[in-house]
């Protein structure tokens, strides 16, 4: 009965993710409260919500090691639209309980 177990696992995954995502959605309306300016993100907002961590990790590899630079998608560019780190990145991160150490070195004003 592998498929039942699979279904169960799927349900469990969904139940952990769903509140997170819908919560973020609810916040999404309050865009300006979070200090975001601009029309849309560098990629689809839904995609960014789920994948920005992987994207940044991938980017730091190819940028530093292969010299691939795409200024518009650089970590340096997030702050032009997400003007407040405290209200945007940090707020969500403390909600989900992750503490990226990036800003020890990378400049991103509070």
């Amino acid at each position, binding site marked *: 009965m592998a498929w039942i177990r699979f279904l169960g696992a799927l349900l469990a995954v969904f139940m952990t993710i769903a509140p997170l995502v819908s919560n973020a959605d609810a916040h999404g309306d309050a865009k300006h409260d979070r200090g975001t300016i601009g029309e849309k993100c560098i990629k689809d907002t839904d995609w960014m919500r789920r994948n920005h961590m992987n994207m940044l990790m991938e980017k*730091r*590899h190819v940028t*530093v*090691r*292969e*010299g*691939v*630079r*795409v*200024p*518009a*998608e650089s970590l*340096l560019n997030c702050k032009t639209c997400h003007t407040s780190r405290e209200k945007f990145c940090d707020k969500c991160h403390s909600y989900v309980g992750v503490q990226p*150490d990036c800003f*020890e*070195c*990378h*400049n991103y004003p509070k």
Partner: protein
Amino acid sequence: MNMDRRSVLGLGGVVAASAMIAPGIHLIAAPERTEASGQSRWAMLVDVNKCDSDCTACTTACRQENNVPTFDDPQRDIHWIRKVELKDKKGKRPSVSLPVLCNHCEHPPCVDVCPTEASFIRKDGIVLVDKHRCIGCRYCMIACPYKARSLVYHATELSENGNADVPIRGKGVVEKCTFCVHLVDQGKKPACVDACQKDGNGAMIFGDLNDGQSEISKRVHEIRTQTMRADLGLNPAVHYQGL
């Protein structure tokens, strides 16, 4: 528009063909993007005769560009480029002053010893520390014959007039001269070379050794230049003239 059957079919073919182009290849120009090229070999040439012992234009510019702080304790000091005074032991020749920085060797010993592959050599010959990977073991500092590397002992903060485009430093990470890779990738010169030409005596030049038209490759081929500790066979990219 009036189209006959054949041209409509042909159009379908075009659409199908463009759909078959491998993903990742875009017919429409992608956003601006640069990449390190294996065709280049970035290098520096220092004319020691022009380098004045009182001049610190290069070291000052480096600290400003890369947010390199100064500490009181010389043992813990971070330096990417430093001025060194060379004295002739017999006193026959006048002492000379020259800047010493990472030599960006073709066969870098620091890269050989790095256990995490944090030290690496980029395709265009620039040797870098991937600070995201460095664990601070300092093997590379011991391996480097030029003492070009420093370990960061203190966490630092961006100073008020610092350069916000360049990351500052985390404690416990090794760092060194990057040939200002962030500027080179934008087609600019390293900060030290720029300062030397503007505020100093124009002793340093920077360019691509593989480009036969560049000033540096012409000069390195025409005049006698030396590299430091050439006997080690590391083939450094920092050349000196008049040593």
